[in-house]
């Protein structure tokens, strides 16, 4: 698990360093990128022993567990093998993420690359583009393997976190369910931002859950840093808010003020970074609070319009089509988990309330989008991909719930 966390931390730190150093005038060429890579690795070496590791719990060998491990290993190798071969070829990745990366490599400058592409350049933060640039600067013909390694790291950390709570069979079962959750496996083989977003945001929430239970500060820092990185991957979605609210509620109610300070220091700069940068470029600064106020005002204004009910009903249909239908198996797991919670009250409300909050935010967000954008019906695929992070959280709840029946299935 330490290696997997280091990889995801390193990827975030490297892209942040590339961004910051270039803003300060350092050209992004091969030598400088290697220097920045070294600067990323050095703190990680010191941090490594302090990172959480996979729990070493001896269990009796089971054939079923070996089969499950084999399946996970084969599927991970399939992803890595495919990513060694694949190139960036999908529409969004070619026209935005990879185009930006290639222009940064050509010019050595983020600002010059932005000049070439125009305002489209600022649509999403530079996380994936900068690691594409890094791969090209090092002479790789494709950055796809980085996506495969994000996926494998995600599986590793997910398994390890589950393993601290449940037996090996259930941890492996949860990891396999994660592989087959909607979109995740496929997104490990294409250069979209959704996999990285789902990885950082859901792991951020799971680290915070660990922090709540075992009170170790490192989990607060990791949880909030990963949540912040999710904003550095995709800045428009507001799902970081759920993690932040729960972090503050848990921290304040348990008087863990030191952890709150460390967590906020790990999160806030990342949450602000891209927004401030774009605002500086366009001379337009809007705070998060005023953005939320704006959304509330938009909904309130729409609520008194005569078309309110019609638009609400259209949004419900659209939401059902784009979220409920594609995620039906996962949502079914959530329904099962809630039903089981009626009888066994082992699971904390933490994850359940987070999932409900995120689903509500996605519905309200869709409604706000429907009010403000005439083309809102044209993005069902985008909305579906945006919600990829919900599957890991629901599967986690489901596995913990199964375990609460106190049956050691498979052992």
């Amino acid at each position, binding site marked *: 698990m330490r290696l997997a966390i280091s990889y995801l931390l390193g990827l975030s730190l490297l892209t942040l360093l590339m961004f910051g150093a270039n803003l300060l005038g350092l050209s992004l060429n091969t030598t400088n990128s290697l220097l920045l890579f070294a600067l990323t690795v050095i703190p990680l070496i010191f941090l490594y022993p302090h990172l959480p590791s996979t729990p070493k719990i001896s269990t009796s060998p089971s054939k079923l567990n070996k089969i499950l491990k084999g399946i996970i290993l084969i*599927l991970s190798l*399939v992803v890595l*093998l*495919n990513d060694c*071969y*694949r*190139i960036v*070829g999908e*529409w969004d990745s*070619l*026209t935005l993420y990879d*185009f930006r990366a290639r222009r940064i490599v050509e010019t050595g400058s983020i600002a010059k690359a932005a000049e070439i592409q125009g305002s*489209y350049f600022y649509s999403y933060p530079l996380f994936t583009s900068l690691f594409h640039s890094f791969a090209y600067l090092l002479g790789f*013909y*494709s950055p796809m393997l980085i996506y495969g390694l994000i996926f494998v790291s995600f599986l590793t950390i997910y398994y390890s976190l589950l393993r601290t709570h449940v037996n090996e069979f259930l941890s492996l079962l949860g990891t396999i*369910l994660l592989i*087959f959750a909607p979109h995740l*496996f*496929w997104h490990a*083989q294409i250069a979209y931002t959704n996999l990285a977003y789902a990885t950082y945001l859901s792991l951020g929430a799971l680290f915070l859950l660990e922090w709540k239970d075992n009170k170790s500060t490192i989990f607060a820092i990791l949880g909030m840093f990963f949540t912040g990185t999710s904003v550095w991957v995709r800045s428009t979605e507001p799902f970081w808010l759920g993690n932040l609210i729960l972090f503050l509620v848990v921290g304040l109610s348990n008087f863990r003020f030191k952890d709150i300070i460390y967590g906020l220091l790990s999160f806030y700069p990342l949450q602000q970074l891209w927004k401030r940068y774009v605002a500086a470029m366009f001379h337009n600064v809007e705070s998060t609070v005023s953005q939320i106020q704006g959304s509330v005002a938009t909904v309130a204004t729409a609520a008194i319009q005569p078309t309110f009910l019609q638009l609400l009903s259209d949004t419900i249909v659209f939401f059902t089509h784009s979220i409920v239908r594609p995620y039906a*198996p996962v949502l*079914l*797991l959530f329904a*099962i988990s809630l*039903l*089981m919670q*009626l*009888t*066994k009250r082992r699971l904390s409300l933490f994850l359940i309330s987070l999932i409900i909050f995120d689903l509500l935010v996605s519905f309200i967000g869709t409604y706000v989008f429907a009010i403000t954008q005439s083309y809102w019906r044209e993005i069902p695929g985008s909305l579906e991909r945006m919600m990829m992070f919900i599957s890991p959280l629901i599967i986690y709840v489901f596995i913990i719930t*199964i375990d609460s*029946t106190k*049956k050691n299935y498979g052992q």
Partner: protein
Amino acid sequence: MVNKISRYSHYILWILITFLIFIRVKSILVSSSNFIKTLEPIFQHPFATTDEKLTMKYPRYYPLIQEIKRLTPEDATIYLPIVNIEYGQPLWALGQIQMTQTLLYPRTVKKYSEELTDGYLVFYTDTTQGIIKLE
């Protein structure tokens, strides 16, 4: 009621898990056939270049892009026909100015209009495609 659910909870659980496995198997089978499909090119064309891989992905469109690149200088203006090709059709991307602009960079790509200046006009039919130099 709650006590009854509690007494039979693990039976309910197993029924639900069986159901779950049933619905997941379909997804797993679909995904598995996709794994095999996505792995096919690795074994069929293990040493394919980037251009060859993009040609496999966009069979008519990408060769046209390469042809335009070969025939036009980097400062050329390329005009795209006004088309509405259904997504998934071989030349669908011709209707996507952003995509074509990306692949033809640093050339300038514009939509066809009445006021054409010097440049090149892309054309296509059901069976062929190419460019015409505008004088």
